[in-house]
């Protein structure tokens, strides 16, 4: 019976139940659903397929292989952690949206054709935005709107690409597409996925949306959207050279923003882009090792980035603030959260024995093997940078720096948050110490050993020097001061002048239409007035007469058609 | 206008003839120029003339608005009803042939009935329009004019 029900079934059913059940029951459902779903995924065998007929097409809403299984486990795990973390939330909007969001993410990774994939893709956008809006602040509503517009754009571009691909090649299969042939549809699909993967320039929805989400919402958000994009990239564009470059840029540029940013959750947003950069590079290199590395890194990233977002969410939940300039000194009040944050920071910085280390090493080793030395250097720089801002800056400013604001009323995070964080931290360490558990799940057989002398040494040295640099900069006061500020990213371009232009366009369309109507009336009226003198000299033509203007349009259209037809005959 | 004797007398002389002529046109409709539409308008004209001379209130005593509304509905019903009856009798909708033993007799009956329906409907709708406009309270003059 289990196998007859597609993988996203339990989560979706959970979402529906959460819609109707009372608050506490909904919370229970949101914990139980991922567990059941996880068990369900565990008993799935590779090669299973579900098909339905729709739109006259044979659709495959579910198809199981190694890659999708891995992501299936991952997403159910993330959903479980998220559900535990948000146990205390009694907001139906969030509960339903979160489960629906997880279900659609699972739907994407198990989709066997592009149309089902697109459907799940759009549902992800629609559901996830509520996690931002649910914070119900002015900023979050604006951010959510921008978020959903960009996600909608991503969906539209993807749809256009999928349709074109179907028209030209007659296939809807989810499989390697590649941009080597220069097909327009391949570029369109890549663009659609790229927006979701937060490619440079399109990344603003992430750094704009996540910090404005609810404390728990950000945890959910960090787990799914970008990972789904990485999954699609790994499916459709492995070995695409362009991605190596894009990924390298993604790994590097957020460092600068992250260092000067004050909102710690936005710092995490930037570091997320940087981590996705590693994955994109891995996909772009395209060798078995590289793809393994990318996928493994995605897996780990969900855990440690989730952990970091959880710890910041806990801080936000307890203090109501996430600005680096207004935090500090929380380690004594929230020791458990601080410890978890440190574990997460260590993982993201790829300390040996923490989960990030293994997967990041895989990607970097693959880059070297394929002789992308420059890229390797960029990644190296990026690793150092990550340690700098995510590994040190976040724990330091939140927990260890001298308190800027009184911390008297602060207490440790609620028990469910601690449980979720503890579990995530435990997993981070487990997969760091015993990477074999993860290897067994990877799409390609692997013989990579992360714990050889070179990797460990190189990484440790790098981290030490990076830490030194931070300390030195702090010491000498050269480090950018933590001030509450707004840093301009490219989204300024479309948020300020763009929005103005948009408003202008809207109002001017009607105005221009009115002018045209008025103008044609004017011309006609001028002719007629000379002939008839039937109306007064002033003001007659200056007014807008909607009823009459339609008649003018009728006349224009009719004569237009007649001219066209007569020209033909 | 009720005190204009000339108008009242002429009106009283004319109106019966107008109504009778309306009936003639109505009855003549199935084999010559005429028919329900024209007849309806003529009958309505007669009644409207009465209204012009004696006032709307008097006319409404003769033909109450309720009755007019009902008659308009009845007219349409007669028309559609004939169609339905022909349907029931096995012909097509408005296939008058089915109304009588021979098709040509059926045609006569059918056309006569339908024209009657049309006549009733048209007369009452015309009258209804007259009532609708004439029974409005006079608007304080020149509201929009200056």
């Amino acid at each position, binding site marked *: 019976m289990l196998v007859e029900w597609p993988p996203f079934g339990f989560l979706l059913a959970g979402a529906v139940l959460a819609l109707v059940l009372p608050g506490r029951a909904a919370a229970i459902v949101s914990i139980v659903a991922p567990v059941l779903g996880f068990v369900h995924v565990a008993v799935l065998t590779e090669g299973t397929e579900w098909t339905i007929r729709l739109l006259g097409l044979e659709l495959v809403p579910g198809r199981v292989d190694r890659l999708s299984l891995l992501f299936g486990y991952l997403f159910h795990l993330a959903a479980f952690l998220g559900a535990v973390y948000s146990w205390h939330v009694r907001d139906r909007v969030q509960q339903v949206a979160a489960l629906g969001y997880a279900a659609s993410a699972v739907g994407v990774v198990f989709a066997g054709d592009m149309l089902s994939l697109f459907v799940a893709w759009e549902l992800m956008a629609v559901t996830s935005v509520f996690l931002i809006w649910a914070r119900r602040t002015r900023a979050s509503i604006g951010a959510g709107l921008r978020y959903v517009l960009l996600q909608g754009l991503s969906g539209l571009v993807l749809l256009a690409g999928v349709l074109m691909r179907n028209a030209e090649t007659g296939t809807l299969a989810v499989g390697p597409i590649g941009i080597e042939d220069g097909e327009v549809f391949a570029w369109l699909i890549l663009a659609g996925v790229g927006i979701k993967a937060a490619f440079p320039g399109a990344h603003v929805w992430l750094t704009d949306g996540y910090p404005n989400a609810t404390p728990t919402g950000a945890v959910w958000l960090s787990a799914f959207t970008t990972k789904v994009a990485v999954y699609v990239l790994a499916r459709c564009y492995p070995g695409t050279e362009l991605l190596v470059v894009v990924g390298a840029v993604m790994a590097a540029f957020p460092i600068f923003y992250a260092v000067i940013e004050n909102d710690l959750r936005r710092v995490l947003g930037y570091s997320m882009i940087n981590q996705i950069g590693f994955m994109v590079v891995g996909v772009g290199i395209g060798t078995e090792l590289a793809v393994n590395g990318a996928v493994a890194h995605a897996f780990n990233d969900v855990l440690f980035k989730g952990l970091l977002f959880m710890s910041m969410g806990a801080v936000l939940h307890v203090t109501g603030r996430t600005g680096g300039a207004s935090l500090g000194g929380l380690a004594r009040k929230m020791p458990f959260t601080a410890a978890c944050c440190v574990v997460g920071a260590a993982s993201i910085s790829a300390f040996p024995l923490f989960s990030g280390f293994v997967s990041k090493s895989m990607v970097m080793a693959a880059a070297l093997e394929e002789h992308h030395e420059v890229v390797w250097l960029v990644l190296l720089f990026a690793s150092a940078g990550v340690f700098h801002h995510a590994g040190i800056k976040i724990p330091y400013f939140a927990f260890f720096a001298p308190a800027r604001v009184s911390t008297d009323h602060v207490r440790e995070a609620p028990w469910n948050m601690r449980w979720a964080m503890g579990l995530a931290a435990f997993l981070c360490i487990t997969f760091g110490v015993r990477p074999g558990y993860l290897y067994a799940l990877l799409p390609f057989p692997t013989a990579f050993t992360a714990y050889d002398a070179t990797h460990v040494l190189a990484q440790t040295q790098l981290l030490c020097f990076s830490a030194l640099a931070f300390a030195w900069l702090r010491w000498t006061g050269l480090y950018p001061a933590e001030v509450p500020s707004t840093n301009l990213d490219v989204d300024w371009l479309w948020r300020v002048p763009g929005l103005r232009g948009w408003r202008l366009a809207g109002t001017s369309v009607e105005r221009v239409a009115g002018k045209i109507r008025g103008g044609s009336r004017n011309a006609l*009226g001028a002719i007629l007035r000379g002939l008839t003198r039937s109306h007064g000299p002033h003001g007659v033509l200056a007014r807008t007469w909607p009823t009459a203007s339609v008649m003018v349009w009728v006349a224009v259209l009719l004569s237009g058609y007649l001219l066209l037809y007569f020209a033909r005959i | 206008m009720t005190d204009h004797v000339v108008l009242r007398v002429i009106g009283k002389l004319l109106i019966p003839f107008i109504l009778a002529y309306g009936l003639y046109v109505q009855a003549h409709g199935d084999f010559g120029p005429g028919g329900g539409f024209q007849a309806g308008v003529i009958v309505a004209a007669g009644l409207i003339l009465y209204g012009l001379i004696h006032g709307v209130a008097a006319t409404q005593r003769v033909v109450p608005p309720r009755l007019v509304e009902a008659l308009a509905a009845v007219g349409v019903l007669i028309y559609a009803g004939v169609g339905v009856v022909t349907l029931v009798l096995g012909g097509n909708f408005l296939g008058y042939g089915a109304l009588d033993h021979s098709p040509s007799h059926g045609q006569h009956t059918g056309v006569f009935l339908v024209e009657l329906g049309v006549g009733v409907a048209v007369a009452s709708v015309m009258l209804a*329009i007259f009532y609708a*406009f004439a029974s409005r309270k006079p608007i304080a003059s020149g*509201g*929009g004019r200056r």
Partner: protein
Amino acid sequence: MSILAHYNDWAVIVLMMAGLYIVISTRSFLKKVVGLNLFQTSVIIFYISMANVTGAAAPIVTEPVDAADYANPLPHVLMLTAIVVGVATTAVGLGILVRIHEAYGTVEEDEIVRHDFDS
């Protein structure tokens, strides 16, 4: 084939244009109704004049005869319907106008627009 040979067409065109022009140019809703009437009348003449057969009699047929001797009755019938439509339109239009006048105290379009739609 002189221009005058088509005098009926010219009449139709003049009436039609006059009607449309009134609809376009006048500010008064009432006059627009008049314009519409004129416009519809032109169409009626258009149909009727096309039914004309030169020198033919009215189509009142008593015994079987050559159809070419009679004018085409169909357009007349059609126009009877069109006239009904026209009357109904006029009645509805005037009915609405009376109520507009009650509500606004005017039937001038620009005044009404200023009253209500520009606010």
